[in-house]
């Protein structure tokens, strides 16, 4: 994470990948307690990851990172779940088969974020989709849209901030 804060994207990606299982486990546990389906847990996971990202500089580098992650995940999770209406839960027996098959852990998708991305400005949407769905780099995205790399970075950062705002304002 130290390397990530210094701007090393690969180190940062690794960091995010390694926290995700923890976030997911906590999110699923909470969702089960609240009677929400697992599919919703992945929405929560994404919202929490976004918060970790936007608040990463609140970690005091002279302290261990564990308590920071635990606290930020807990705070955000409570928020995220509180906003969601309680949904009728489906009896577990009915979905047992689908659950048993399972998807590979890294390949889970969430749907809420797609709705929110749809609410971004057109240019931000295009940039977000280019990088996330098409897997393009900032460089390639810049070339594609005839923008400077700096402009793409700024737009991406703004888009992520806006997404966090949209999550917060969202009432399902």
């Amino acid at each position, binding site marked *: 994470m130290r390397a990530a804060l210094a701007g090393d994207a690969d180190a940062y990606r690794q960091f995010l990948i390694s926290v995700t299982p923890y976030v997911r486990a906590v999110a699923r546990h909470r969702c089960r307690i609240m009677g929400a389906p697992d599919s919703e847990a992945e929405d929560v996971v994404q919202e929490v990851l976004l918060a970790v990202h936007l608040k990463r500089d609140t*970690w005091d580098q002279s302290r261990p990172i564990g308590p920071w992650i635990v606290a930020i995940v807990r705070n955000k999770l409570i928020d995220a779940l509180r906003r969601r209406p309680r949904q009728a839960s489906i009896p577990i027996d009915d979905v047992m088969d689908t659950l048993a098959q399972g998807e590979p852990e890294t390949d889970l998708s969430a749907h809420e974020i797609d709705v929110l991305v749809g609410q971004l400005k057109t240019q931000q949407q295009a940039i977000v989709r280019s990088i996330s769905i098409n897997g393009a780099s900032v460089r390639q995205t810049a070339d594609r849209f005839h923008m400077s790399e700096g402009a793409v970075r700024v737009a991406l950062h703004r888009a992520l901030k806006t997404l966090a705002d949209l999550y917060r304002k969202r009432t399902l």
Partner: protein
Amino acid sequence: MKTHDLIELLAQDAPPRKDFGAVFATAVALAVIAAGAVFFAGIGFRPDIAQAAETVRFLFKFVVTVSLAVSATVAVLRLSRPGVAMGGWSVALAAVPVLLGGAVVAELFAVPRDGWMTQLVGQNMRFCLTLIPLMAIGPLACLIVALRRGAPARPGLAGALAGLAAGGIAATFYASNCTDDSPLFVAAWYPLAILAVTAVGFISGRLFLRW
């Protein structure tokens, strides 16, 4: 969107980031400058400050205001970092009114009963109640802007603490202008002025510090 793709998106947005502590420290410096600018442009030191500085009552005002400003500032910084405990800072903050209360008791012994009201009402009540909030606006704004980068578990509380810190900074400047030095005056009017700032801080916290 797959979580994997989101992570890719986040990783691409990873330029070096300034530590929140550094941002906050800058904001505190700006807060002091903002209050100081209003103070020196508007009222300045009291004319007899040199003599006043030799009296215990005058100096004690700063013990109270500075400890309030410092403990509230550190408390709000800690609150804005997930996973960092308040430590002894909530105790330090709670000690400020106790300190003032002790001084009030001492003053009640030192001043004869028929002088209590004169000391309490003083001459500058109206200035105290208007100038402290006025000088606190700039500092509060600086702190709230910086705290938007933080991640306080309780936004309202963080805002209120920022209000206390801003009020403490403003009160420190104001105390060097005001000629009412009795702890009775300080205990009656300063908290009222600072609480007004704290309330504004609380509301701004609820409005601007959610994340």
